């Protein structure tokens, strides 16, 4: 009896949390479907009766949405490539080899990864001057590289930990089977480390896709990425909230897609069965 009551209370509690979590999402969807101007009515309508796709139509056909999307994708691609190309060999080496300066590197990586966001903002002025001198202001590629640089310490730490969890027997078996260093990495270690790499990719995606401070400082309006573009919808006197909401939804789609794709590789226990009896 007590268990039943407890269960009912818990269910109710959890439901409340779920509703609280989902309400903003509902609000955004509902806002995106309402005609401009009805958002400020005092009348409470949970299901909009005057739903319209005007906001989406404006976004897709009249706004700069696709230009911003293209810019975001360029930055994202540069970041993803640079970051993975640096993180994977670095974290493998950090996990498997002993070399002088390893501990210093790891500790400084740790400090850097902790102040990553803070440092970007503090270093903004320095970065601004630097890029100006290098004539790299307003460059999407430069922005991607900067993102990658700020991510590498953290992703390397994370992936090193993942490599540490893979038994060295795999590497050694590959060596005995005649594989070179890179063949071992390519045919044995990377496929086994897929779940770890998937998490790394998610980390990179979430961070880069939503970064606004650096992008809005360093980019000119023709090179706006999605988050900067989204914020630019806010006008001085009045914000078209229905368009803003509609864009928020489209903006989230690629991130959701990456999550769904990466999830396939997140299956835990992939290494089960290769080791031990």
């Amino acid at each position: 009896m007590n268990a039943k009551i407890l269960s009912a209370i818990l269910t109710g509690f959890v439901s409340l949390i779920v509703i609280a979590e989902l309400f903003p999402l509902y609000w955004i969807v509902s806002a995106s479907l309402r005609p401009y101007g009805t958002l400020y009515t005092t009348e409470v309508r949970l299901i909009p009766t005057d739903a319209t796709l005007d906001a989406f139509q404006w976004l897709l056909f009249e706004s700069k949405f696709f230009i911003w999307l293209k810019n975001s994708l360029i930055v994202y691609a540069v970041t993803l490539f640079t970051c993975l190309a640096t993180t994977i060999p670095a974290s493998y080496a950090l996990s498997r080899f002993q070399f002088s300066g390893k501990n210093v590197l790891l500790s400084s990586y740790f400090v850097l990864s902790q102040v990553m966001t803070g440092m970007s903002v503090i270093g903004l002025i320095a970065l601004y001057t630097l890029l100006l001198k290098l004539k790299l202001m307003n460059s999407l590629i430069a922005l991607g590289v900067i993102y990658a640089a700020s991510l590498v310490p953290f992703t390397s730490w994370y992936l090193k930990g993942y490599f540490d969890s893979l038994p060295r027997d795999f590497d050694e078996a590959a060596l005995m089977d005649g594989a070179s260093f890179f063949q071992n990495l390519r045919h044995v270690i990377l496929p086994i480390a897929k779940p770890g790499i998937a998490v790394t990719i998610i980390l990179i995606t979430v961070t880069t896709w939503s970064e606004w401070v650096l992008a809005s400082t360093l980019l000119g309006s023709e090179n706006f990425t999605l988050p900067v573009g989204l914020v630019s919808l806010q006008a001085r006197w009045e914000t078209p909230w229905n368009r803003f909401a509609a864009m928020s939804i489209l903006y989230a789609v690629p991130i959701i897609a990456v999550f769904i794709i990466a999830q396939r590789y997140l299956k835990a226990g992939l290494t089960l069965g290769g080791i031990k009896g």
Partner: protein
Amino acid sequence: MDKIRLEHLTKKFGEVPAVDDLNLTVRDKDFVVLLGPSGCGKTTTLRLIAGLEFPTEGKVIMNEEDITHVHPKNRKMSMVFQSYALYPHMTAFDNIAFPLKIKKLRSDEIQKKVREVAELLNIEDFLRRKPKELSGGERQRVALGRAIVKEPEVFLMDEPLSNLDAKLRVFIRGELKSLQKKLGITTIYVTHDQVEAMSMADTIAVMDRGGKLQQVSPPDKLYHNPATPFVAGFIGSPPMNLIDCSLIQKNGRVFLDAGEFKIDVSYLGDALKTTARGSELVLGLRPEDMFILQGRAKGNGDFVATVHIIEPLGLEAIATVRKGDKLLRIRVPSDFRASMGEEVGVSLSKQKIYIFDAKSGKRCGIS
């Protein structure tokens, strides 16, 4: 012909030597077992031969060539790991084919060779399965297949049977030995299980805890002629009883004095007198070289002891008797009956006692 020769091989981790000045010759087509307690450096020795570790000092010679610093992939050796280390993302087929794919063999050739190996090991039926869908014994075979397909000159095996259940282990032990003879490939096999070593090896190399080689012999010689108390106490199940004793001479006769009892060893003659100069000795008695006398006969033995415990093993039993603070294990027939604490006589088979010098650890005088 010598296939592999280890010369003054030493590996230190920090200050502690894992392998200490090891010299070992492995003849072609020989099945050599490195035997020792856990942590004795036998796996490290194997890894030095494989090239997965480099020695602090000494050389690894293969086919009269110094390969101490040659990359593992250029050593013509295969290794079977204790964990099997099958690649979890590949099927059994791909696991076995991996060394060939690395060598960039043509795919029809790979197919043919993998099929041959699979047939040899009876694993054709589950080549499409991934490691996690295989049982322990099947994984073991796939790991063996991956080692065989490379057609190496030397097999290295690191306790490959230790993850199998007891019954399967005995079965695969026999199979592995016949496979090695059939393929005629030099094998170096690491284990801490002396039964495994005795049953499979052509030659056993016993290592002690300090990473030193104690004795290299064929199994039967190792059993009947242990060179040191360590080997004597390691080989045999149960192993030899080792008793500290000293040599005393009285009225022209020679005795071994173990405190609780004395044995007249005058019959060993001068051999013992000249070699056993120190009086600190270790007396070794195999469990099967002692006999228990019960009832009236108990006074006829070499000494009297009390029965401590009896462990029946089916065909026979092991009786442990107590003499003072010493426990001695004696092999008895399975129908042996005695109550705990019963006084019994123990008689020794005098021709089969082993005497070691406690300080040098060497066998004394006689064989």
